[in-house]
């Protein structure tokens, strides 16, 4: 069949073509208006911040960029991301391999793994690890010391110390692992097992197969994993603000946020100049990745349902499963239990007196109007952000899927920009562009919701694009030949078929927005409190039990919402990386 071979890559020639019908449907109008609004909300703030604001102050920019302080926080960020990212890559790769290619896989774990660490907002999870591994009062340390005392070793503090470089790197790794896992496991899943089998039949041993066939063909997935780690790692704010600050290690994203929040008036020049560094790193990483993946000599998805014979782990099966469970424990169960425990204490102490546990913190939480408003605001924002972003991305994905046009590719490219410039930078850009005149959106939920939508649009697009690419063009063509026009094709055929992936994407966006801190740290004012900001404030003021209670509440609520939605709306598709 000629056309299945040619159609995807070819463009029709325009020469001497009879006039094509130019029906301007309401669907096309709505899609393009939506696309234009989205593009405007990305281009205008970014342009205004970096060209309007920063372009005027070039000497100041140079001064900031060459200051020893910038270099120090940059160096710290590089070390943290390189070490934490490498560890995350390793853990993620092993977890992906166990869950995709060995008989130690646990079905539920494969699906829960990337989502579970997100249930506890990263800011709360980091504090959970502070509760666990502070030298004096950490629960783990307290119990370890008791254990060591049994064998005659008596310690006053430690043995663990979270407020150190290793501690910081460890928590970085915990929160970066899901991104490595998602990219690598989806690569492994789409790699046709026949490729490996063919290598084995050709006489390659398992190790040779791994290095000569599996890894070379996984290059795009591995490249994507590294890119994700760099993008997310350099933008990570919650982990270093909690652990790095106490450890006297300041990293770049924290300096950017503090330049805005701890100075009055906000030092936008410093924040924006440092953001330039962040953007440069991500863009360079992206270019390098493109070069590696450029020539498409890599395997694509093979037959559906083709499953490799799983590697038999034998007596390594139990250790492999413990490793998976250990990761889930370290990343969500342990920190959550620590938060839960502290939330019922009058004050944070490792000597748990079960008789003295009290629900007072929850009552206190309820009585604080700003906290209560923070919770309702965050849930409302999460609902709006997840819904708007999902629908927008579905519409835009369909727009560029339906007709490959130059404009479609431009829109596609622009909505990926926020992913490259990180949440913090988007936050500053929105602050610069919309907080002041003529918009004066400062302290409103409108400012937060538009920022969130722009921040999460790349992730939503990823879900929407991968969903729509699984729908063969003949699904749409059959509807067209049956007489259906744009709206009907989209609403009756395309959207329902995308639904399972979109629901999974919606859930992820809901969790991420509910615990958002990167942009909120700068944008959420007294007029629009949100949970992430409230947790950070309580952390700064040392109100630990109340903070713990708040973390427990937001974790419980978002977990319930997401599990309900996933149960109702089908299971998440594997192979979607954020």
């Amino acid at each position, binding site marked *: *069949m*000629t*056309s*299945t*071979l*040619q*159609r995807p*890559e*070819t*463009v*029709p*020639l325009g*020469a*001497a*073509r*009879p*006039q*094509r*019908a130019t*029906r301007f449907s309401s669907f096309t109008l709505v899609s393009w208006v939506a696309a234009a609004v989205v593009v405007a909300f990305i281009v205008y703030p970014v342009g205004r911040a970096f060209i309007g604001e920063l372009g005027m102050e070039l000497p100041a920019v140079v001064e900031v960029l060459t200051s020893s302080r910038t270099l120090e926080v940059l160096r710290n960020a590089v070390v943290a991301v390189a070490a934490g990212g490498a560890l995350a890559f390793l853990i993620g790769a092993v977890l992906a391999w166990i869950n995709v290619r060995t008989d130690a896989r646990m079905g539920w774990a494969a699906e829960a793994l990337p989502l579970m660490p997100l249930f506890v907002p990263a800011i709360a999870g980091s504090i959970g690890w502070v509760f666990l591994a502070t030298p004096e009062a950490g629960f783990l340390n307290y119990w370890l010391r008791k254990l060591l005392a049994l064998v005659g070793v008596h310690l006053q503090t430690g043995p663990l110390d979270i407020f150190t470089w290793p501690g910081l790197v460890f928590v970085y790794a915990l929160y970066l692992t899901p991104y490595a896992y998602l990219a690598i496991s989806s690569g492994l899943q789409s790699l046709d097992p026949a490729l490996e089998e063919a290598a084995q039949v050709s006489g390659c041993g398992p190790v040779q197969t791994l290095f000569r066939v599996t890894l070379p063909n996984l290059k795009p997935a591995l490249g994507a994993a590294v890119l994700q780690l760099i993008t997310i790692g350099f933008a990570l704010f919650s982990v270093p603000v909690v652990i790095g600050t106490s450890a006297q290690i300041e990293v770049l994203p924290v300096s950017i946020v503090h330049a805005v929040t701890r100075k009055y008036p906000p030092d936008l020049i410093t924040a924006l100049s440092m953001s330039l560094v962040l953007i440069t790193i991500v863009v360079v990483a992206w270019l390098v990745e493109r070069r590696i993946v450029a020539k498409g000599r890599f395997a694509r998805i093979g037959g559906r349902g083709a499953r490799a014979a799983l590697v038999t782990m034998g007596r390594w099966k139990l250790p492999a499963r413990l490793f998976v469970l250990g990761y889930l424990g370290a990343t969500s169960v342990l920190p959550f239990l620590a938060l839960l425990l502290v939330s019922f204490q009058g004050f944070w102490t490792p000597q748990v007196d079960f008789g003295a546990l009290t629900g007072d913190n929850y009552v206190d939480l309820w009585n604080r109007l700003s906290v209560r408003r923070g919770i309702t605001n965050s849930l409302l924002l999460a609902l709006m952000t997840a819904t708007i972003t999902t629908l927008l991305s579905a519409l835009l994905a369909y727009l560029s899927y339906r007709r490959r046009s130059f404009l479609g590719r431009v829109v596609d490219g622009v909505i990926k920009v926020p992913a490259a410039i990180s949440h913090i930078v988007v936050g500053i850009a929105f602050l610069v562009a919309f907080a002041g005149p003529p918009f004066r959106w400062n302290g409103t939920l409108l400012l937060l919701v538009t920022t969130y939508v722009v921040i999460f649009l790349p992730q939503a697009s990823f879900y929407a694009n991968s969903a729509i690419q699984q729908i*063969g063009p*003949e*699904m749409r*063509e*059959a*509807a*067209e*030949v*049956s*007489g*259906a*026009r744009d709206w*009907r094709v989209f609403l*009756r*055929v395309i959207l*329902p*078929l995308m*639904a399972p992936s979109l629901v999974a994407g919606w859930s992820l966006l809901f969790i991420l927005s509910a615990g958002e801190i990167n942009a909120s740290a700068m944008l959420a004012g007294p007029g629009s409190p949100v949970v992430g900001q409230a947790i950070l404030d309580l952390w700064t003021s040392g109100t630990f039990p109340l903070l713990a209670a708040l973390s427990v509440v937001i974790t419980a609520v978002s977990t319930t919402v997401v599990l309900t939605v996933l149960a109702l709306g089908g299971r998440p598709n594997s192979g979607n990386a954020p």
Partner: protein
Amino acid sequence: MTVTTHATSAQSSAEGQPRTGVDIVGLRKRFRAPDGTIVAAVDDVTLHMPKGDFCVLLGPSGCGKTTLLRCLAGLEHPDEGSITIDGQPVFGPGIRTVEPQDRPVGMVFQNYALWPNMTVADNVAFPLTTGPRKNRLPKEQIRARVDEVLKIMGLSSHGSRAIGQLSGGQQQRVALARAIVAGTDVVLFDEPLSNIDAKVREILRRELRAMQQDLGFTAVYVTHDQAEAMELADQITVMRAGKVMQTGSARDIYERPRNRYVAEFIGTANLIPVTSTGSEAHQVGTPIGPIRIADPGPDGPADTPRFVASRAHRWWIDTAERSGENVWSGEITNAVFAGSYTEYVVQLGETSVRVWADDNPELAPGRKVWVGVDPAACVVVLDHD
């Protein structure tokens, strides 16, 4: 290019309107391949598909048959030429191109393209629930029509099933039901049986042909399977590299191929080069001597190489000496048992011919034999290009 009219095509509809089928004139569709070269997927195709006929587009992968079909559906926009479906111009110079939604066609896709988010009945009802609301049938009538079509397809009890619960053959029937439910007179088929087991395929093929004759729609059917084409078609169009090589009935195509390509693509043919025009009218010179022929073949440039084409099963083979016209002696070089016949390769000087005959243990390689062919089975074909 070759326009064949059929006795069966001169029918009229019940309303007395002339039934015109599908008319394609001078159609071209080019693609730019990834390496920048330009590929003519459809290259100056002119073709008439008579109303009510089962018309098959036959050719190997890449011959442009699917692109041509998609041009009829409106899913591809041709570069030039014109298309008229049932008297309605849908594409052509000075005509506003009619979008797929508005073309009077139904279509069955290669993998059926049934929507898994809808039940069988919803899939079939879909074409009746599109278009402006005021033009739609009332709900009860839609339901009645869907029930009727499902009944024709033998799927009455399957209306509320999910698509995933059906077998391949049942899915194929649902796809056909969806294509005919709106009562369009032209139904397009894009290799609809290629994903089905060989046994089921035979059954479905017979059902499809019977259904097409009962309902009387014009079928345009794309396939690369010549057996399928032979069995289904009133009219076969053989395509190669975007061009029509020959159009005609199955018998025409098989017994009177016009060129070497068609002769080789359909069935197994012996091609013996023509070296001189014979001394008599129905005779040509070849390396193995003069051959008497039934058909002098099409006119063509004098320098185009020509061949005598004859079907392997129209030859006979004998161990006893024979004489007469179109009789040669030679030596068997190979014998392959193929079940219902055995293929003997017989060397006649520099030329070898394949003969399909009943299996005979005496006919072993090395054996001297006499072979011959009925002059009625010999036609002259042009070399392609």
